[in-house]
């Protein structure tokens, strides 16, 4: 469905209702959010909208009177709002408020809970495959620390002692980094706050984490990081996205090949790309990979939720993901994120993001 067929929606109310509506609508194909209004300029829904480059205003009248709006959804709970909307809306705009809006909101909350459960289940299933890798990655440094500590007890040579201590300190730092990564990943997304995220740093983190579930020794990791602005996101969610793509890429290559990670600016959007030299994805599968429960892995090996969740998280941040694959050559997943505060350029795509509002 192209943007020209999109339903343009105006949201009134920037509280929990408005926030939930934005999160849902940005995930849906064929819906464009014209804007969101709340008399409180600091309402959470308005802050989220600004991060996603959705027009946010403290003047409901200007939004309601926008001629392009197809549907106005009022979740302010303000009893005087329906009359105000009737006075200012265009003749063709429909209006959803009162009990009907409440019903929509509760359906959305239900859907969101369901999604949170799915995302969590996928995370737990990945953590399960991590368990052995985590034990390995933690026990190795511990083994070295114990070994060097006991060697210190037995040695008289001050130079050796210094050297062993340096090794122990190095291993402690390594362990501490890993524990930070695991914590970041395991945190449930519901409690997350949006913070500025440096994408290249998070990609490196994802490579470290990927070692828990797959062996990277024979994969050449090639980072090509051009400077890109930070994005406002929950780091744990983006880590889940990058790790998922990296682990998929390594598994596709049978743990042998080149993994290229790129960040750059392209058509005014932040572009992240994860490329492998694996066998590629068959064209008939390429269209289905983001559908929930689609998997080409053996039964019990994949949940089929990985890329579905990747896609959902990326949409939540106003972005979109494009797979490009050539059988026999490899696959590249390119992610485009909007830059907060910059109008997004419309890029022709079969996989539209939140279309730029007019």
């Amino acid at each position: 469905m192209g943007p020209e067929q999109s339903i343009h929606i105006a949201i009134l109310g920037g509280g929990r209702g408005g926030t939930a509506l934005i999160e849902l609508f940005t995930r849906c194909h064929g819906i464009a959010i014209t804007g969101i209004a709340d008399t409180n300029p600091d309402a959470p829904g308005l802050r989220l909208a600004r991060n996603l480059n959705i027009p946010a205003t403290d003047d409901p009248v200007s939004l309601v009177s926008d001629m392009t709006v197809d549907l106005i959804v009022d979740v302010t709970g303000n009893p005087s709002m329906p009359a105000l909307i009737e006075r200012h809306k265009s003749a063709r705009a429909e209006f959803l408020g009162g009990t009907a809006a409440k019903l929509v909101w509760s359906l959305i909350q239900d859907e969101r809970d369901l999604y949170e459960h799915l995302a969590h289940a996928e995370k737990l299933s990945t953590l399960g495959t991590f368990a052995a890798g985590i034990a390995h990655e933690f026990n190795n440094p511990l083994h070295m620390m114990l070994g060097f500590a006991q060697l210190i007890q037995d040695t008289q040579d001050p130079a050796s002692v210094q050297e062993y201590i340096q090794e122990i300190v190095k291993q402690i730092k390594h362990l501490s980094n890993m524990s930070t990564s695991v914590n970041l990943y395991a945190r449930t997304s519901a409690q997350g706050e949006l913070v500025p995220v440096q994408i290249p740093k998070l990609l490196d983190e994802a490579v470290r984490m990927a070692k828990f579930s797959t062996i990277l020794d024979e994969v050449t990791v090639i980072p090509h990081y051009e400077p890109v602005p930070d994005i406002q996101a929950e780091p744990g969610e983006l880590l889940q996205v990058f790790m998922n793509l990296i682990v998929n890429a390594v598994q596709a290559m049978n743990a042998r090949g080149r993994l290229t990670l790129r960040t750059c600016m392209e058509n005014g959007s932040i572009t992240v790309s994860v490329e492998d030299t694996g066998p590629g994805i068959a064209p008939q599968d390429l269209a289905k990979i983001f559908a929930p429960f689609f998997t080409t892995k053996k039964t019990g090996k994949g949940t089929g939720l990985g890329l579905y969740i990747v896609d959902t998280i990326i949409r939540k941040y106003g972005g979109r993901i494009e797979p490009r694959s050539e059988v026999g050559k490899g696959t590249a997943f390119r992610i485009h994120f909007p830059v907060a505060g910059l109008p997004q350029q419309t890029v022709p795509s079969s996989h539209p993001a939140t279309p730029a509002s007019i």
Partner: protein
Amino acid sequence: MGMWPFGHHDPSRASMGRVLIVDDEENIRRVARLTLTKAGYEVIEGKDGADAIEALNSGENPLLVDVIICDIRMPKINGVEAISYFRSQYPSVPIIVQTGFPDLNLATSLMKQGVSDYLVKPVENEKLIAAVAKAVEGREMFTT
């Protein structure tokens, strides 16, 4: 005695025995080397299964070792594959598994294949020395 591809150590070698340590982490091999050298053993190293097999077979005659200490999770030829190779080629050489995986099923299956010890990292240096001594001793009882 000459039938054994790996002879047990002979007294003229003046060491307690020769140990092959196979682990992809350099510092883990280093700890083992420092610890076992101090305890009187001669130590050779392999950084993965393939490297270890090559180290054993690089000379004109297969290198004689008394004990093999082997990790499980390694690139190229992993521990399980390497162990099955060692068992088939050098059935008289005791193998000690030293791994970060606390995996009971794997331990049981490896013990069934004749692995003499299954140590889970972190392993105390004393414990490693004891395991090596026990394996060498068992081997001497077996070969004499």
